[in-house]
């Protein structure tokens, strides 16, 4: 059975960064994203990004607009990763 997203490339290993010659505001916020792949869970993603699976709640809190149940994330879903 073929799924519509089957042939979509996997961008979950994309590494990103940024910098600026401008000053930083006092309450500077830098946020990046992570694309969920099969087998991922929020704690696995937190472990992968922060090195601490216990920080999954930070990812959950940053994505409450799209994640209603923290145990229900799906491949291809793009999550905001705060403070990474």
């Amino acid at each position, binding site marked *: 059975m073929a799924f519509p997203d089957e042939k*979509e*490339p996997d*961008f979950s*290993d*994309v*590494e*990103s*960064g*940024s*910098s*600026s*010659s*401008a*000053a*930083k*505001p*006092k*309450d*500077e*916020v*830098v*946020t*990046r*994203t992570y*694309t969920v792949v099969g087998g991922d869970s929020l704690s696995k993603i937190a472990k992968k990004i922060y090195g601490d699976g216990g920080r999954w709640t930070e990812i959950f809190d940053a994505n409450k607009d799209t994640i209603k149940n923290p145990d229900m994330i799906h491949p291809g879903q*793009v999550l*905001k990763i705060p403070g990474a």
Partner: protein
Amino acid sequence: MRTFHPAAMLALVAAVALGACAKKEPPPPPPTPVPAPTAVPTPVPFKVTSVDLGKSIGEDKKIKETAAAFAPKDTIYAAISSEGAAAKVTLKAHWTFGAKNQVVNEETRDIAPTGPAVSEFHIAKPSGWPVGKYKLEVSADGASVATKDFEVKK
């Protein structure tokens, strides 16, 4: 009784008047130096002036050599040049792939520019970028300010 001749009287009055005129006036105070008018800078509102793509940046964050085509193992840099000042501007780089605009990456950065500035965003994919067409959309405080198309070729 002693009388004065009118001519003598005139001479006396003239002498007194002359004496009064000859009285030295105190020298006028030196003129107070007037400070040169200083131009009050008009605050320039923040504005993105250009977005360039390339494979590397310099210390000034600017792209060393602009490019629109990349190899699968390249790191792709976007340098966003801006002018103007703002207490806080949120820049966002939204990278997508293909006609379906599949999200590749999205990153935001808050800046507080006081004048011309360059902000860079970069992405890399250790396993290699899929060949195809990509798009970068840059927004400032939620408003799209520029888009750049580029391609990854083998």
